[in-house]
């Protein structure tokens, strides 16, 4: 590791007491705390950082900020490897390791730079034209080639080990950008007492002032900025977010920002998040995002050693890193001259200023003379010379050609206000001839821009406006304050003046407009000649502005050239649409903590802990975890669930059914409401009775089924399936509120309030009677579909005689907190009968054996008739779905309808999803007769059985068909039977 040869011994906002070692392409270098990766590379004389996207031309650090098109690197390693990271934004930390991208085998020698020679074959629209070549050429040659060549880094291929967070902020005034204008506006609003959020991308405040020797009230830029920062941070209702990029502007003044909490560290601290996504709700927004300097388009303008003038100034002043020793400045505006003194103070010898304008103001001339630089006016650079670094420029000054040697070329084509966020509000920026740039238009949101972002480049005036806008924004939110004194700004610069220059005529070599996507000046002309004249077409055809920098540097030059080609004015060409995000944002921060198990909440039933203690295996049912089976030593799922089924059918079983949706319905019109919701009658359901109910959607298809019990005259208790609980609740709310608000009915979800357990089997009554000693459970006193509510100890309980298994069965509901103790009481009482806990698998076996429908049959496409419930459509009343359920196609007897199927060869199994065809027909769509919905091995029938939806339904009973599952490469002959496989007369139910 050697000393940084291009580091000045004094000056800059770096901490020379904290040297940091870092690696670029596995070579070690030294930087200091306060450096970015880019500034540290420049201090070490490293400019070459990447290769162009298409032509693999060598590229260097071009900017000092977010708009960087070239210096994109892979940062970090392994699972934390992050491609396309801007070296200009990476804060240096000790041990940092970055790799250049898009080069092979090495940066200085790149085989694919032959593309540079092949470039006549890689014109604009190359990718689109290539699609028209023979398909096999594309797949075998061009796509792999382009993918390899496209480079742009490799994403990590392991799970991201870091944590991310999401949070919301509400404020009166959000100020985006803590440059001088943003600081003053935020201070004005904060002094008024408004809730202020000030978001700054950098880790320190001051913006572009930090790159200059500007003094304010005789203070340096950084101490003036830091003083305001201190004052703002002292306000209780003001908040400064540094390292925070506001990247999205959404409707109703909601903005999104990403705060990089730990990107400046090797790894995040223990339990710390790496990044945080902020959603900011702001009453007023002030955009103080500054402006981007514009490149100039001339020959070989992408050589390393060529950079924006503002970037060179930043490296020299803020980082004390000399970007070169002998510089030429190419500028068409006065700001290029403003940088001269600072560059010279930073140790850069400026030999010439090349200016295409004929008249240059006296202040600018004085600035050039002060640093001993020649001015060549009416002059342009035709081309830069050099291979891996600029060595000189060919100048045309009013027709006189001259070559000037240099190792740094600073360009300034003017300034583009950063209108990205403003444009996201849904408006288009407008052209300002004064600054030759797009400035914010009237906003569609409560937002306005100040400072450079508004095209206001004069510091003193920008501060006056910023103060006023800050006070105005606070006042609009109800906070009053008066103006305060602004600092004296040392006047040294002239009023901003510019003559646009979109491209140099007669340049030699390639002239790049979009360096990140390798769009050349000639591509724009080609695009216009081929008919892509709209700016949106130009963008897509040439890919101008479509890279990760979204055309921050290139767009306006591209528009200017297109306008030239078409003979239009630039304002009539217009701009493309700006979309979020302003900067690429890691997917991880959008996910936040919603990863893996934290993606959505997990719901546990009241008896969950008991099931865990008894070794249950669980299944996810939506957010619920349900016991699936309770294996005993060595049992697999099938063995366990068959044992649980046999134990239930032969004696007694207990099942946790707490996940069923439960809705309490009350009110004078509750009977009427339920009657309209259900296809079957509910108006005359007696108190103390339960009834199986079916609900349709308005289109006549089945919504859900469940049991509803009348507990009292105006009090009902309704259950839904686990899956449809939320949908049924919303459905009821919609019909009650939006269609029948006059009905006097109230209802509430009570799913979480009740623990529910089903006790089933011939001995269920005996077990239950031991626990419910005061209730007469005899068949005469408490027959099938009876229901009652009673006191059990010190709480209310409900008992329903309903059955999903086809056995004598009850469902007991107790308040959730008593669930586990009731469950345990039943298990204890049932010990003498060998009571067995059963899970959803056994539940499924028994319901299929009984032909009861569930989710696979109520699939959103089935009618009541399809699933054997046609008789539940009342003809005596109106109900939701009745009119459209009568449509011809929905009552067609050839529809796929519910049947049972069974394997007569008990050694063969069935698969859900298998399609049914005639045994001698091919398994193709034309021969499809339906499909298998639910399958199980039946321990009672001792073979595989299934429910299926089959064309013509039960008219096929007795037929042999073939069940084909191509995914499992499986087919088997099956017999069509009734869906009621077991105890079709329900003799076991009514005992």
């Amino acid at each position: 590791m050697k000393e940084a040869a291009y580091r000045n011994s004094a000056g800059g906002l770096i901490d020379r007491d904290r040297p940091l070692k870092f690696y670029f392409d596995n070579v070690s270098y030294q930087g200091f705390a306060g450096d970015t990766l880019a500034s540290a590379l420049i201090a070490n004389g490293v400019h070459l950082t990447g290769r162009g996207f298409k032509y693999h031309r060598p590229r260097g650090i071009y900017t000092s900020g977010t708009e960087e098109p070239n210096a994109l690197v892979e940062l970090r390693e392994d699972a934390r490897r992050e491609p396309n990271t801007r070296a200009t934004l990476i804060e240096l930390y000790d041990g940092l390791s970055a790799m250049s991208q898009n080069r092979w085998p090495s940066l200085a020698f790149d085989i694919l730079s032959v593309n540079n020679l092949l470039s006549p074959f890689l014109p604009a629209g190359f990718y689109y034209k290539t699609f028209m070549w023979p398909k096999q050429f594309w797949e075998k040659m061009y796509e792999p080639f382009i993918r390899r060549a496209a480079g742009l880094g490799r994403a990590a291929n392991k799970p991201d080990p870091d944590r991310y967070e999401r949070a919301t902020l509400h404020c009166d005034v959000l100020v985006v950008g803590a440059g001088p204008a943003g600081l003053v506006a935020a201070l004005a609003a904060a002094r008024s007492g408004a809730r202020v959020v000030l978001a700054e991308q950098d880790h320190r405040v001051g913006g572009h002032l930090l790159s200059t020797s500007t003094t304010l009230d005789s203070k340096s830029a950084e101490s003036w900025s830091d003083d305001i920062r201190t004052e703002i941070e002292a306000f209780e209702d003001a908040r400064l977010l540094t390292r925070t990029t506001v990247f999205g502007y959404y409707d109703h003044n909601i903005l999104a920002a990403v705060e990089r909490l730990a990107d400046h560290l090797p790894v995040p601290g223990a339990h710390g998040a790496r990044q945080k996504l902020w959603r900011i709700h702001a009453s007023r927004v002030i955009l103080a995002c500054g402006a981007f300097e514009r490149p100039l388009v001339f020959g070989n303008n992408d050589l390393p050693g060529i950079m924006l003038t503002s970037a060179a100034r930043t490296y020299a002043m803020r980082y004390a890193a000399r970007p070169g020793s002998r510089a030429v400045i190419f500028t068409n505006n006065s700001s290029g001259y403003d940088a001269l003194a600072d560059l010279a103070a930073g140790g850069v010898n400026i030999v010439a200023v090349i200016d295409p304008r004929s008249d240059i103001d006296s202040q600018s001339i004085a600035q050039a003379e002060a640093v001993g630089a020649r001015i060549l006016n009416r002059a342009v650079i035709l081309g830069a010379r050099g291979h891996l670094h600029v060595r000189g420029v060919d100048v045309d000054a009013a027709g006189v050609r001259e070559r000037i040697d240099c190792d740094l070329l600073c360009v300034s084509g003017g300034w583009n206000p950063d209108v990205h966020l403003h444009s996201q509000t849904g408006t288009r920026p407008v052209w300002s001839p004064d600054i030759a740039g797009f400035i914010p238009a009237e906003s569609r949101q409560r937002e306005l821009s100040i400072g450079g972002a508004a095209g206001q480049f004069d510091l003193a005036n920008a501060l006056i406006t910023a103060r006023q806008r800050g006070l105005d924004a606070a006042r609009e939110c109800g906070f009053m304050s008066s103006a305060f004194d602004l600092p004296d700004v040392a006047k040294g610069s002239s009023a901003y003046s510019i003559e646009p220059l979109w491209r140099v005529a007669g340049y030699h070599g390639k002239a790049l407009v979009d360096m990140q996507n390798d769009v050349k000046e000639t591509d724009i002309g080609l695009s216009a000649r081929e008919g892509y004249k709209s700016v949106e077409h130009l963008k897509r055809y040439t890919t101008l502005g479509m890279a990760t920098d979204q055309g921050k540097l290139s767009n306006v030059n591209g528009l200017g050239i297109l306008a030239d080609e078409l003979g239009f004015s630039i304002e009539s060409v217009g701009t493309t649409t700006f979309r979020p995000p302003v900067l690429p944002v890691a997917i991880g921060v959008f996910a936040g903590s919603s990863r893996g198990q934290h993606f959505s909440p997990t719901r546990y039933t009241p008896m969950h802990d008991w099931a865990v203690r008894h070794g249950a295996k669980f299944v996810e049912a939506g957010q619920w975890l349900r016991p699936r089976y309770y294996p005993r030593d060595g049992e697999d799922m099938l063995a366990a669930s068959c044992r649980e089924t046999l134990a239930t059918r032969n004696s007694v079983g207990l099942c946790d059914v707490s996940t069923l949706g439960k809705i309490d319905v009350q009110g004078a019109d509750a009977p009427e409401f339920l009657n309209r919701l259900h296809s079957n009658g509910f108006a005359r359901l007696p108190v103390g009775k339960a009834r199986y109910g079916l609900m349709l959607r308005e289109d006549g298809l089945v919504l859900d089924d469940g049991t509803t019990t009348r507990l009292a005259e105006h009090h009902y208790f309704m259950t839904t399936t686990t899956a449809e609980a939320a949908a049924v609740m919303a459905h009821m709310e919609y019909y009650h509120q939006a269609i029948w608000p006059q009905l006097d009915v109230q209802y509430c979800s009570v799913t979480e309030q009740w623990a529910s357990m089903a006790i089933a089997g011939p001995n269920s009554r005996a077990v239950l009677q031991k626990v419910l000693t005061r209730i007469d459970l005899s068949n005469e006193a408490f027959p099938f579909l009876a229901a009652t509510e009673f006191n059990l100890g010190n709480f209310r309980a409900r008992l329903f005689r309903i059955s999903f298994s086809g056995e004598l069965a009850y469902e007991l509901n107790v308040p959730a907190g008593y669930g586990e103790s009731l469950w345990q009481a039943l298990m204890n009482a049932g010990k003498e009968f060998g009571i067995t806990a059963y899970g959803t698998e056994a539940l499924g076996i028994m319901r299929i054996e009984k032909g009861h429908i569930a989710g696979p049959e109520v699939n959103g496409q089935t009618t009541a008739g399809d699933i054997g419930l046609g008789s539940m459509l009342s003809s005596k009343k109106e109900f939701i779905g009745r009119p459209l359920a009568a449509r011809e196609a929905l009552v067609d007897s050839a529809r796929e309808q519910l049947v049972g199927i069974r394997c007569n060869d008990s050694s063969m199994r069935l698969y859900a999803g298998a399609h049914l065809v005639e045994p001698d027909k091919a398994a193709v769509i034309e021969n499809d007769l339906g499909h298998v919905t639910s399958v199980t091995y039946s321990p009672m029938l001792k073979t595989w059985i299934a429910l299926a939806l089959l064309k013509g339904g039960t008219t096929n009973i007795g037929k042999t068909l073939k069940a084909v599952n191509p995914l499992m490469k499986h087919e088997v002959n099956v017999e069509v039977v009734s869906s009621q496989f077991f105890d079709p007369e329900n003799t076991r139910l009514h005992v």
Partner: protein
Amino acid sequence: MRINCPLCGERASDEFSYLGDATPGRPPSGASLKEWHDYVYLRDNPRGPHHEYWHHVGGCRAWLVIHRDTFTHEIFDVGLACDIEESVG
């Protein structure tokens, strides 16, 4: 977006779920199959002002009728569906 629920005040739009066009009225008893078909299946999707059903599903559970510009997302008015239906009759 932010939606000003008449019961809860101004809330972020992700507390709400969207149903769609609130203009069609549910056909009366005895309506023809065609009227029912049109009610269930035919929906306007205008670019501009529109009356829509929203459900404050993560809040008070009220169904709302929101008069909103689908292009600018400007919200002109938010009412409870039950009030609006009652005034319609």
